[in-house]
């Protein structure tokens, strides 16, 4: 009975939670104070000036940023008038939830308002998100570029309209064309190359490179990098979406069964990597599995010795650093990286450091 009550309470809580989520944009804008309307009307410059004048109190987070700039006066409780938008192709999967946490941490550290706009792998939704952010008078846009052709013009529009842009995750090849401050991410090709070296060292001869999306430039580059450095054969293929792991596993199973020489599998995402591991063990084949990105399940398999390595692009930084860069630019006209992209990877997690990373991953920041 008690459990039933708890259950009902939970369900009720969720309904409220869901309701709260749906109106999050409005809420977060309102959190600042009574001059919500001023923010909307006034230009971003004014907002910055006001801040410098007003705050002095809290300051608990301000220490994070070197004390010589304006940020020292910024306070989370009082809030700044800066509003940044992060528009990504996020599907709210394991990867993007960590980016989201990085963004949240940066925003509460800096005391700015951030809006998370997940695009769910739909470039059109992202373009609308970007245009929406410009229309709301955003003080800075951080965006991922899974589909440059569709997104570059929209972001160029933002830059021309005086909104600073930082690209993140995918987009290393296009951020300069946009006129973005910098790009925060890993170069997918280099990450794939590093994975290829790992497979070489493991003595693998034929790697199946499985993709969970078909039109994602970044994923294609990962397999391309693998092909570049790997000394054996690489077969690349689309293995169905993460939303249907049953079909994904079946596709990998069939691809492996069709070619006995396959003795390595590289999944270019965490979910497909685990699908590949299951397919190999169903077939009773000795396949060396490598993966991309981190989830607790994936790290557990690395710790257990079933997966050789995973390429870690430290996506927490991809949420944190763009906000920091936008903030520093707006308050102090600073740019980081000297015009070059800021690389957050590739780092590797293998049996040697899996346990440490696992603890952080369970906390949701790796």
């Amino acid at each position, binding site marked *: 009975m008690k459990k039933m009550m708890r259950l009902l309470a939970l369900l009720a809580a969720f309904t409220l939670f869901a309701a709260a989520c749906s109106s999050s944009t409005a809420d977060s804008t309102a959190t600042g104070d009574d001059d919500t309307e001023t923010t909307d009307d006034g230009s971003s410059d004014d907002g910055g000036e006001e801040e410098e004048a007003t705050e002095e109190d809290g300051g608990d987070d301000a220490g994070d940023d070197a004390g010589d700039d304006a940020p020292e006066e910024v306070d989370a409780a009082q809030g700044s008038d800066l509003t940044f938008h992060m528009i990504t192709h996020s599907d709210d999967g*394991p990867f993007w939830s960590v980016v989201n946490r990085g963004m949240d941490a940066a925003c509460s550290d800096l005391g700015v308002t951030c809006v998370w706009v997940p695009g769910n792998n739909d470039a059109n939704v992202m373009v609308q998100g970007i245009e929406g952010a410009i229309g709301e008078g955003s003080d800075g846009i951080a965006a991922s570029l899974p589909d440059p052709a569709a997104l570059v013009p929209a972001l160029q529009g933002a830059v021309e309209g005086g909104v600073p842009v930082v690209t993140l995750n995918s987009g290393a090849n296009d951020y300069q064309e946009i006129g973005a401050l910098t790009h925060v991410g890993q170069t997918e090709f280099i990450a794939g190359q590093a994975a290829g070296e790992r497979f070489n060292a493991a003595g693998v001869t034929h790697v199946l490179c499985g993709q969970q999306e078909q039109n994602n430039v970044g994923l294609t580059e990962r397999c391309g990098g693998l092909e570049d450095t790997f000394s054996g054969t690489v077969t690349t293929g689309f293995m169905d979406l*993460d*939303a249907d792991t049953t079909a994904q596993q*079946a596709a990998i199973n*069939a691809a492996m069964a*069709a070619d006995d020489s396959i003795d390595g599998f590289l999944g270019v995402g965490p979910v497909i990597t685990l699908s590949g591991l299951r397919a190999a063990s*169903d077939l009773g084949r000795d396949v060396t599995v490598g993966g991309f990105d981190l989830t607790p399940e994936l790290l557990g398999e690395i710790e257990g010795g079933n997966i050789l390595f995973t390429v870690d692009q430290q996506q927490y930084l991809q949420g944190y650093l763009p906000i920091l860069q936008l903030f520093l630019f707006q308050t102090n006209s600073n740019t980081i990286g000297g015009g070059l992209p800021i690389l957050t990877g590739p780092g590797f997690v293998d049996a040697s450091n899996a346990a440490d990373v696992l603890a952080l991953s369970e906390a949701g920041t790796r």
Partner: protein
Amino acid sequence: MSETTMDEGHISNADEAGQGHEATAVATESRETTKSAAAPAADERLAYRSIFQRMFVQPEIGAIIGVIGVWTFFWAVSLNFGTAGQTQNWLDTASTLGIMAVAVSMLMIGGEFDLSSGANTGAMGILFILLIKEVGELGGLGISIWFAVPISFAAALLIGYLNGKMVERTALPSFIVTLATFFILRGLKLGMSKLLTGQISVTFTDEASGYDFWQPIFAGEWIRNEHIWNSRDIFYLGFAIGGAILLALSMCEMHFVRRETKSAAGFPVLGAGAAGVGVAIFLMHTTDGVNANALAAAVLGVSVLVGLIGLGMWRYEPVESPGGIRLTGKINMRIAIGVALVGAAILASFAIDSDNAETLFFPFTVQGLRVVLMMALGGAGFTLLTWAANLALRVNPTTKLAVSTIMAGAIVAFGFVIRASAEATKFRTELFSVFMFAALGIFVWSVMSVRFKERRSVDDGADALGMKGLGLGIFMLVLAVILRHLFVTQDELDAMVNPARFSVRMLWFFAFTAVMAYLLARTRFGSWTFAVGGNAQASRQVGVPAARTKTQLFMIVSGAAWLVGMLLAFRLSSLQAGAGDGEEFEFIIAAVVGGTLLTGGYGTAIGASFGAAIMAMSLVGIQSARWNTDWRFVFLGVILLLAVIANRYIRDQATATRR
């Protein structure tokens, strides 16, 4: 069908005058109206339909032909497809997809959609895991699986009930209402997972109370390589051959006129044929090499013919005067074009150098061109020949035999070409035997039709016996396949055969399909479903509780989503918040491929399950054939298009014949 053809049909039927001489061939509307006007004495509802016509008007037939066609196609182009391991692989994919496709197809027959069905599968699995996950700061409720199963099931039914009620009360299209449910479920999945566990994927362990009992129910496995049965192939062959023979006999029984008094003269001939079949199988089993097997195959072909003629002499009314070959201009033209096309296909195959591996233009290779030419020209040729054979059937059986012989010859020739170019065109050499069997079947059946009188009237005794035989024959064939898939021989183990893990998910799929097929076809609820989908207003006026029926259909869909959620949760022990999102369209596509109409009121449960099988087979088959996966959706698109066109054709035929 033109006027001339109809006249010929009349002529050929005239000498076999009888009450049921209508529906000789697939009837068109105009033809049937004229007929029933001419012979008002006959009760049109009892019009005789031949075994083939009866098979052809089943709504599932499109999907069944599709399943056989897609299976054969992938079997022909890949070495792996068709092994137990890959059969398990696509069946497993088909299971979760199929359970939902069947439920969704029921709802579609009832005239509604449920766009929340995909997200619902993941939601049910996540709800279940959150219920049983151990208590902790970032944990679940930690209740026993014994309670979590009914609680989550009740939650599923509630969602279905709410969907149904909302559609009823708001009178909005279900497309809109369930779209809202979809977003709500999707948000709840992510929100709940993150709030409760801080993760976007939820996991549980085998320590949950009741796990040992429920795990085998939702995720039990039969690992083929652990079940060795060395004499498996004897039973496999026995059941397969026995089943094939039973099928042939039952078809004869249902197609030919039984004799008043049986004639013993047929026995020796029948015995000789049977003995020949035995010898041929023995030869095939013991000898190796092309020549020996060709000899065995020849013996087999002749023996089947002799045996069936013996059967006919014993049981069926002979044709006194089969008539001569009367080829009309139309038939001749079709034969000529058909043969020319098949010839062109064969020529094309020989004209293109089999060693030439050049790429003509991306992604088309010389050998690809060769395959396409062979398939396109050959396919068109055989279609024309089939057409000619159908026209010939309206003239008389002898003419049909003549055309069929030409067709069988063309098939044999084509089979040899396939074999000769198998390597370059990436076809299996075994495809050759399929062509040979097809040619044999067509030829033997035509010979039988010339020698023995085809039935034109209802014969309940013969039909009952034939149906029993058909059922038993199909059962034996299925049993043979099952035996072969469930057990492994020591020889196969020594050859390192891939293990196949048959999961209990397949049994859930079969059982669910069977129950739904029964509900739909045999119960009042099923009839109401068709009624509300066909015309909700009219059905209400005749007393069908339309709203209640629809709500129940929504509950069936969400109940199925619960089942799939359980299967997913126990399969992976963990679920992503995004699990199932977007799958609802796959369910709808599978239902449509299986012959369900988007407009409601027409479809079957079994058809939807075959639709799911077709989709799963293409997924696995494309990987097995090692095709470039970039083109996967092109293939899926073509299959969808062909399926819809075929279903439409069959539906037209069915509605025309069934009146």
